[in-house]
């Protein structure tokens, strides 16, 4: 729960407990080695932590010493949201950022449910969008109560008081009082019915590039991720699940594994085998020494070829109509029909922090330490696996070493609890840390689905007259959030297709659900828009070429009704030197995206060599995300999102043979490295609009911009990702 108690030199009342936990390890080395561990005699539910504090809502607690604890309803996985949320709260509270302490929220949909989802989930780049108004109102209400308390004490009008940096002031009399001194009296104030929010021109934190609150501990080894949970008496496990989805354990020979020093127990479940040891090395050596025969089941012969054959066939079906404007059939018949199809591969998440979960399962209670994007789902899934009431499952969230959608799943917690449930003898009830090897992580992911998009269009006077667009692929929503899959339409699957940015008079968008055999699909940073923005922006370049127009001019002419998108495009063209001469074999490609309510244009400059290898030279991104809560975080998310997307464009593909994922680790699932990283320039466009989403937006736009750069450099129109070097080499213009 509490992770950040070292932002300032505040007292640490829990130091003795921490010292106990770390076994008296050297102070200064492990001082912040900090976990929310309860002693055996402590009650299961922690005592009311709001005791003696001003706690007007679920997010704000002010101590009598002025320390302001902010409880984070969204999780921090690198996107900077802990700082952005703290800034929003501190803004309307007029709190003092220097005295802010952050806590992970405990599981509670009621208190911390994401307003956009109704459950406590971090995803879809909506943390700021969903919480922008609720948090501002909550903090403004708290501020009003503090002002009322001060005014009552001074016997002045509340309206004559001002607030700043954690103090109430009464200018006429020159009196000031710290929020800490008001913590007690403010408790008896009534929250105002309606509370005025600040005029954005009065913002002191929002819009400033403030330093992140989570980063100081991330440069000195003190930050605690789920995988860093350490508990007294802890044992360590690693596992092998059936490499074919749905398969079972047939036979296990553990003779050799039992002889490995430090191995304590072999746990055999119906679909996985785990080795428990004194440390990960014993567990890993033990696992390697096992001889496991699998009953691979119905998916034993599944291959990528079969999956693609089935997807291509499915994409020829009509699909469910998600949007229809004008008369597409008539408009398509009226002109030359231009068609293309685009294909996207399976992708793994490959978070840098391998999948892990620590559990302590006792007969009446289960405690979990992990880093998850779905706190309450982990809690309920663990409760079900453990056969316990939800209230008897305590979940301690941590910083996430990358999320990217992988940690929207509770599977790692369920596996850990099932293994812990089999611990024998003296191991019963001990804390068990289950860490997946990278290979296990890579092969038992929920994969970004394969998609096939087909587009048919006609042109009239250099503009698009008809546009018939169809997505075929897995509905992740159908499994993950069924209300978002209705009447055959996955709202994520058609995101950025139904609301594509261009002015097109006759338009139809359809969705065909096609679940890949033997592969579980999941959300992957950029989600549905990754696929749709790619297909749309690739086709735009092909259409532009068809009518002999410049790709920027062609797009621009159809963005008249979308001034934010057009302004981003214009700025990207200007900043990138669009139209200026380039050396041979170098191309510029442009793409735009309206994903997650941000408007981004991107120009990628890439060089292609004789072997078809692609070298990224420079990227320019222009971004209108409305009010940028922390502009530096926005820039960082654009830079990182571009690299994340381009990594997949250049290297990413998971393939299946004999039902098994063929990739295993970073040697065969390549990640873009620093020596391939281009210069990136990000230009933010000032805006007073409500904040847009920023964690995923740039992921959607880099890939089509790169593809269009290759198209410009070589004339080769790639229609499938990742980039196929042999196609480029074969088709490159001399």
């Amino acid at each position, binding site marked *: 729960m509490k992770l950040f108690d070292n932002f300032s030199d505040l007292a640490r009342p829990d130091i003795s407990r921490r010292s106990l936990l770390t076994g008296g390890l050297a102070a200064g*080395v492990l001082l912040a080695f900090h976990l929310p561990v309860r002693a055996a005699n402590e009650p299961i539910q922690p005592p009311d932590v709001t005791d003696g504090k001003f706690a007007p809502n679920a997010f704000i607690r002010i101590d009598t010493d002025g320390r302001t604890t902010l409880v984070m309803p969204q999780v921090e996985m690198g996107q900077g949201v802990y700082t952005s949320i703290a800034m929003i709260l501190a803004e309307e509270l007029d709190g003092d950022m220097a005295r802010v302490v952050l806590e992970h929220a405990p599981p509670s949909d009621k208190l911390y449910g994401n307003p956009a989802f109704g459950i406590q989930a971090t995803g879809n780049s909506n943390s700021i969008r969903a919480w922008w108004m609720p948090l501002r109102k909550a903090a403004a209400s708290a501020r009003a109560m503090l002002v009322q308390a001060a005014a009552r004490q001074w016997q002045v009008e509340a309206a004559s008081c001002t607030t700043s940096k954690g103090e109430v002031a009464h200018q006429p009399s020159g009196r000031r009082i710290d929020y800490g001194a008001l913590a007690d009296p403010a408790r008896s104030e009534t929250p105002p019915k309606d509370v005025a929010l600040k005029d954005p021109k009065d913002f002191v934190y929002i819009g400033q590039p403030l330093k992140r609150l989570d980063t100081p501990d*991330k440069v000195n080894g003190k930050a605690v991720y789920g995988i860093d949970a350490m508990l007294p008496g802890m044992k360590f496990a690693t596992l092998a699940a059936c490499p074919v989805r749905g398969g079972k354990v047939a036979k296990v020979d553990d003779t050799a594994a039992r002889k490995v020093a430090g191995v304590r127990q072999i746990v055999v479940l119906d679909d996985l085998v785990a080795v428990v040891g004194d440390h990960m*090395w014993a567990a890993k050596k033990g696992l390697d020494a096992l001889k496991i025969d699998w009953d691979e089941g119905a998916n034993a012969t599944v291959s990528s070829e079969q999956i693609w054959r089935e997807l291509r066939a499915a994409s020829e079906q009509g699909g469910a109509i998600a949007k229809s404007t004008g008369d597409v059939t008539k408009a398509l018949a009226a002109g030359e029909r231009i068609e293309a199809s685009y294909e996207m591969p399976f992708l793994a998440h490959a978070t*840098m922090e391998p999948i892990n979960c620590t559990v302590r399962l006792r007969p009446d209670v289960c405690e979990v330490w992990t880093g998850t994007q779905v706190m309450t789902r982990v809690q309920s899934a663990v409760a079900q696996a453990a056969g316990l009431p939800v209230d008897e499952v305590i979940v301690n969230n941590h910083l996430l070493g990358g999320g*990217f959608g992988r940690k929207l799943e509770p599977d790692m917690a369920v596996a850990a609890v099932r293994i812990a449930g089999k611990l024998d003898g003296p191991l019963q009830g001990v804390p068990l840390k289950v860490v997946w090897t990278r290979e296990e992580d890579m092969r038992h992911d929920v994969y970004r689905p394969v998609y096939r998009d087909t587009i048919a269009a006609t042109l009239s006077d250099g503009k698009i007259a008809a546009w018939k667009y169809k997505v075929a692929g897995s509905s992740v929503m159908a499994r993950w959030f069924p209300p978002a899959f209705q009447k055959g339409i996955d709202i994520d699957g058609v995101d950025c297709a139904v609301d594509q940015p261009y002015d097109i008079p006759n338009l139809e968008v359809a969705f065909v659900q096609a679940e890949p055999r033997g592969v579980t699909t999941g959300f992957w940073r950029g989600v549905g828009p990754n696929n749709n923005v790619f297909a749309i922006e690739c086709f735009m370049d092909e259409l532009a070429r068809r009518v002999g127009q410049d790709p920027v001019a062609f797009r621009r002419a159809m963005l008249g009704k979308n001034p934010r998108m057009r302004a981003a495009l214009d700025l990207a063209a200007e900043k990138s030197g669009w139209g200026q001469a380039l050396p041979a074999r170098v191309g510029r490609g442009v793409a735009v995206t309206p994903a997650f309510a941000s408007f981004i244009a991107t120009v990628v400059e890439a060089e292609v060599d004789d072997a078809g290898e692609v070298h990224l030279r420079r990227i320019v991104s222009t971004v209108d995300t409305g009010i940028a809560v922390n502009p530096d975080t926005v820039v960082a998310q654009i830079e990182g999102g571009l690299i*994340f997307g381009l990594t997949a464009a250049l290297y990413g593909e998971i393939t299946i043979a004999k039902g098994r994922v063929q990739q295993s680790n*970073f040697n065969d699932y390549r990640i873009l*490295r620093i020596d391939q990283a281009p210069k990136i320039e990000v230009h933010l466009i000032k805006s007073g609009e409500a904040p847009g989403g920023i964690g995923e937006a740039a992921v959607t736009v880099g890939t089509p911009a790169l593809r269009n750069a290759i198209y410009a450099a070589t004339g080769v129109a790639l229609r499938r990702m990742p980039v196929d070097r042999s196609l480029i080499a074969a088709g490159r213009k001399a």
Partner: protein
Amino acid sequence: MLRPVMFEGVRMATTLTINGEQISVDAPPDMPLLWVLRDVLGLTGTKFGCGIAQCGACTVHIDGKPVRSCVLPVAAVRDRPITTIEGIGATQAGARVQKAWLDLEVVQCGYCQSGQIMAAAALLAATPTPDDSDIDAAMAGNICRCGTYVRIRAAIRQAASGRQS
């Protein structure tokens, strides 16, 4: 004083020097240093990423040189001094790198950054004024999934120039 967790049945005392402190640990000789640091000593700043020396998250210094602790058997360390992310701030190069990392707000999820900082500190100790190709060569073994590479390059340049000023 560092005090390791003791395991019953394993008696293979090795003396290590970690961040200037001597400590005796019970660990099998083939156990990679990574797991000794993390699971035996509780020094969890050094990260597990791949286990096959492909990602650099586990980078520590032995004799001031960057090594991948996930594939380095503890027996191979012998009496050479080990520096981890928890101790790198005590070195001149390490402190400069940490400061530049914060000044330029390099970090996102942060999981790879222990290894990035260890690699960068080793680079600066050996090559005080690296150019971009030195930086790329020294840092190409460290993967960052959040894509912080642009800022890593800038931060190393800043840390290097800070030294000159």
